[in-house]
């Protein structure tokens, strides 16, 4: 085997030397034979002739010798490739149509796969990422949790004989700089073993160590390479210099290697900061270092030579000790059990972590399915093109068969042509994927959550694309190659080719499958577009248009009501309020709250929102009975609450909630609340699903640190209030950039998945229709061209133009009917897979399926109309003269 490979390599490397050697060897033989024959008494001329006769055909022997070492196959392939290229140049229209079709089909796959790859499959650029493990904790009920408290991360890392290093990490953002130069910077809080676990070495300076991650250690940070180059000037002087983070000087001690920007996929960490430094930057965040907050994901590197199974066993053995250090003795037994009752699990962690995976894995899988169908439609197109063309090529093929080419040889050549088309299409597809990559990322990004991934095709994508291209070539190439070489050369050569037309059942079958696939995609597209529209036109219970929101302080003492008064003085401001949470911001707060007298459970039962006076007015969230909060609701006055309809129905069915009393835990404090108002249900946490049970409490009655949002309803004609708001608010909050957002944009942002599905499924549905239309057009145009004479005869015998049009259009009727009959149930079966992603309609929605069928039939008829009209314009005289 090895000898053969060496022999191949040798012959390929020195192809000319091989030929020369063969020549020389055979010439030597002939000369020696001639000499021997002369010695036996023949004349030199006779001897030379005799020697050649005895030798046989030199070319044949050479060819056999080439075949013997496998060179002939390569020669033939090379010949096939250049022959295919010449054919493409001769049939530019055919080649261009096929290549563009394939480029679109393969390009769709490459683009979606790039996104899939970037989010799900790409290794982190660290040392041996394949060894890294992510630690999960499994609850007895089978759910897994990937978040750990800081003490637990430290306890896992500190275990001897367990991991070489284990580190926690979590993305966040901070403000950097001061005054007008203040801006947000993306950071990662990590535990001290982070760079150890990842096996990274510094590009400049040094990286974090466990010693940096101790309470009271001097605050330090590691810059990413890009951040260092772009924001810190890329100089050595920048290292060991402090930057101001939330006003605190933090020394940049080093730069991580280029390409690495944190372990959280989809975002970048400009600065990486030890978790223990957090209280120095944000004193109120101190509880994050305690056992009560699970906010870090863990990546761990096993000890060399210790298997995953062994590591899991060791981790399981010490798990009780680890969890014991991660609970607060003051906790209730149930809460303690929520930590101690878990068991550890290890999963591969080399691709990093991102919450995006849980959000996008399903949409991306559905989209991979969608683009696969688009490609199948494209394949059907190219296959019909190849079939149509092969009947035009029958004569060429027949000649080649007649002069001795084997059928295998012809099939091989046709397949090489298919592969060439496919690979040319794939090359164009990679360009498409690269160009559309940025577009795809922008579709899944919102202003607030920028997704940073590099969608540039890497070798994964290139390998995937090449694989798809080869599979594609087989799909569209094999059937036409088999069919078109099944010719008997004799009649083709004797006769002209018009009488020996190939009657193919394959063409209508291809058309029918295209129709079925298109219908599936169009139904899917309509379902997703309608889902988005249903959600956008849904009445969420409040009125987002005309409301501006400003995030003031994510965690601080309540902001003085006098600020609100100043905001209300600004021109165009109709009303303004504070709240702890704006609708659909993604953040929420929940607490246990039940009618007074019932024992409070340990778990949270109810969504809480702190709201200042005029909150309901600002959001236009109607109070159905009772009153709104007023300036009279202060810390000194009785504690009050407003409940929503869902809460009232659940706990006070059939009676008015006004005047009823609740007991609740509000920010760790047990309170008795009197219900003073009933608010309309609103979709504050998600547009889908039922409004959650909600209790509103006065912002002014909250104690301790709270998040503060400012909502402002402005007049329709209002100009940009941002500068005015910044002037007003910046002095109050020197460490927070004042960003003014529209509430409507936040509502839209909550629909990002739906928008992605609607635009991509819609786009691919459209592409499918275009490809199907091209397929129909191509097939009918070809049929009309082939049947020109027959149409001429029919017209000469009195067929009307309308009759001819009907005849041609009739060619699409059966494939269309079969396509609908197969496609509609297929769409129904496929829709079970993504039914959970729909909203406000069922996958079997008759109107949707009807719409899709109408669209498909309309497109099919339109595509068929052009060739039909051409057929109707056939002049019988001209057609018959073609004979």
């Amino acid at each position: 085997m090895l000898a053969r490979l060496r022999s191949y390599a040798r012959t390929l490397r020195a192809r000319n030397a091989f030929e020369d050697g063969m020549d020389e060897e055979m010439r030597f033989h002939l000369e020696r034979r001639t000499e021997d024959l002369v010695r036996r008494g023949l004349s030199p001329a006779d001897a030379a002739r005799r020697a050649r006769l005895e030798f046989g055909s030199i070319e044949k022997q050479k060819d056999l010798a080439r075949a013997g070492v496998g060179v002939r196959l390569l020669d033939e392939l090379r010949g096939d490739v250049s022959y295919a290229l010449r054919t493409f140049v001769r049939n530019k229209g055919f080649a261009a149509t096929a290549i563009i079709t394939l480029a679109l089909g393969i390009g769709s796959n490459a683009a979606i796969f790039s996104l899939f790859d970037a989010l799900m499959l790409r290794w982190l650029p660290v040392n041996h990422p394949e060894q890294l493990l992510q630690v999960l904790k499994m609850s007895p009920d089978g759910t897994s949790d990937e978040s750990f408290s800081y003490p637990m991360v430290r306890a896992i890392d500190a275990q001897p004989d367990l991991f070489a290093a284990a580190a926690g990490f979590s993305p966040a953002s901070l403000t950097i700089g001061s005054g007008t130069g203040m801006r947000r910077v993306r950071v990662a809080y990590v535990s001290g073993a982070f760079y150890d676990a990842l096996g990274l070495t510094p590009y400049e300076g040094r990286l974090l160590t466990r010693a940096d991650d101790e309470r009271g250690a001097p605050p330090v940070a590691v810059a990413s390479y890009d951040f260092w180059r772009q924001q810190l000037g890329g100089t050595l002087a920048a290292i060991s210099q402090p930057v101001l983070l939330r006003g605190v000087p933090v020394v940049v001690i080093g730069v991580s290697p280029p390409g690495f920007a944190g372990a959280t996929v989809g975002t970048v960490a400009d600065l990486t900061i030890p978790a223990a430094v957090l209280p120095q930057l944000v004193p109120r965040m101190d509880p994050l270092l305690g056992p009560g907050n699970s906010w870090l994901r863990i990546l761990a590197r096993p000890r060399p030579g210790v298997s995953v199974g062994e590591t899991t066993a060791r981790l399981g053995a010490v798990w009780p000790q680890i969890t014991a250090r991660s609970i607060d003795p003051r906790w209730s037994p149930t809460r303690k059990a929520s930590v101690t009752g878990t068991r550890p699990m290890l999963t591969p962690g080399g691709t990093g972590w991102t919450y995006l995976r849980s959000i996008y894995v399903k949409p991306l899988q559905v989209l991979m399915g969608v683009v696969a169908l688009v490609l199948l439609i494209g394949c059907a197109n190219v296959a019909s093109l190849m079939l149509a063309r092969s009947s035009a090529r029958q004569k060429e093929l027949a000649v080649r068969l007649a002069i001795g080419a084997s059928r295998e040889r012809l099939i091989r050549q046709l397949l090489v042509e298919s592969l060439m088309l496919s690979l040319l299409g794939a090359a164009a597809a990679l360009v498409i994927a690269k160009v559309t990559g940025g577009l795809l990322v922008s579709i899944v990004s919102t202003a607030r959550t920028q997704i940073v991934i590099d969608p540039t095709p890497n070798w994964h994508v290139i390998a995937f694309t090449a694989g798809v291209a080869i599979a594609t070539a087989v799909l569209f190439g094999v059937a036409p190659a088999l069919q078109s070489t099944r010719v008997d050369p004799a009649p083709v050569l004797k006769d002209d080719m018009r009488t020996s037309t190939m009657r193919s059942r394959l063409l209508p079958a291809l058309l029918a499958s295209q129709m079925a696939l298109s219908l599936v995609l169009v139904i899917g597209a309509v379902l997703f577009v309608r889902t988005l529209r249903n959600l956008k036109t849904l009445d969420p219970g409040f009125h987002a248009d005309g409301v501006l929101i400003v995030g003031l302080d994510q965690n601080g003492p309540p902001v003085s009501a006098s600020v609100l008064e100043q905001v209300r003085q600004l021109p165009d401001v109709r009303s303004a309020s504070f709240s702890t949470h704006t609708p659909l911001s993604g953040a929420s707060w929940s607490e246990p709250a039940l009618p007074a007298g019932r024992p409070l459970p340990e778990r949270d039962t109810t969504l809480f929102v702190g709201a200042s006076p005029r909150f309901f007015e600002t959001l236009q969230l109607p109070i159905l009975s009772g009153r709104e909060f007023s300036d009279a609701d202060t810390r000194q006055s009785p504690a009050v609450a407003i409940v929503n309809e869902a809460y009232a129905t659940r706990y006070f069915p059939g009676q008015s909630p006004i005047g009823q009393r609740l007991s609740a835990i509000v920010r760790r404090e047990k309170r008795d609340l009197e219900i003073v108002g009933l608010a309309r249900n609103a979709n504050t946490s998600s547009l889908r699903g039922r409004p959650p049970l909600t209790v509103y409490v006065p912002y002014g009655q909250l104690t301790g640190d709270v998040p503060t949002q400012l909502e402002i309803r402005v007049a329709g004609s209002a100009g940009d209030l941002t500068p005015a708001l910044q002037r007003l608010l910046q002095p109050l909050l020197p460490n927070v950039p004042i960003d003014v957002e529209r509430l409507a944009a936040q509502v839209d942002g909550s629909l990002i998945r739906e928008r992605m599905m609607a635009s991509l499924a819609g786009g691919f549905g459209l592409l499918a229709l275009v490809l199907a239309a091209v397929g129909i057009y191509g097939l009918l145009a070809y049929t009309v061209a082939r049947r020109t004479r027959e149409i001429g005869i029919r017209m000469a015998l009195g067929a009307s133009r309308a009759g001819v049009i009907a005849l041609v259009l009739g060619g699409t009727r059966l494939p269309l009917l079969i396509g609908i009959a197969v496609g509609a149930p297929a769409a129904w079966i496929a829709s079970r897979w993504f039914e959970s992603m729909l909203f406000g309609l069922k996958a079997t929605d008759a109107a949707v399926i009807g719409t899709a069928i109408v669209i498909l039939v309309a497109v099919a008829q339109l595509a068929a109309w052009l060739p039909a009209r051409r057929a109707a314009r056939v002049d019988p005289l001209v057609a018959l003269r073609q004979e």
Partner: protein
Amino acid sequence: MAEQAELLPGTLDLLILKALSLGPLHGYGVLLRIEQMTRGALLVEQGALYPALYRLEHQGVIEGTWGTSENNRRAKYYSVTAAGRRRLKEATDSWNRTAAAMTAALKARPSEG
């Protein structure tokens, strides 16, 4: 010249291996040695030798090196590799078994059947 027999398919490879096992030869030399070994009783199409030599070299049972011939011309000399010796032994055994069986079969008389 004595009456010549057609070469049985597959036997050319065996003859070449046998010829080369007696010492390295160039292509024409292989032909001469086969004639000599078979006393000219087997008909070898001279050109057919080369595809066989190339195939055997490709399989790694013989190897060719360029050298100088008796009369000082460049010629490619073939010799048997270790794999070739194993192949020759196996092929010889197999041939002997086949030949013995064939001979026995062809000697069979009706009365014995």
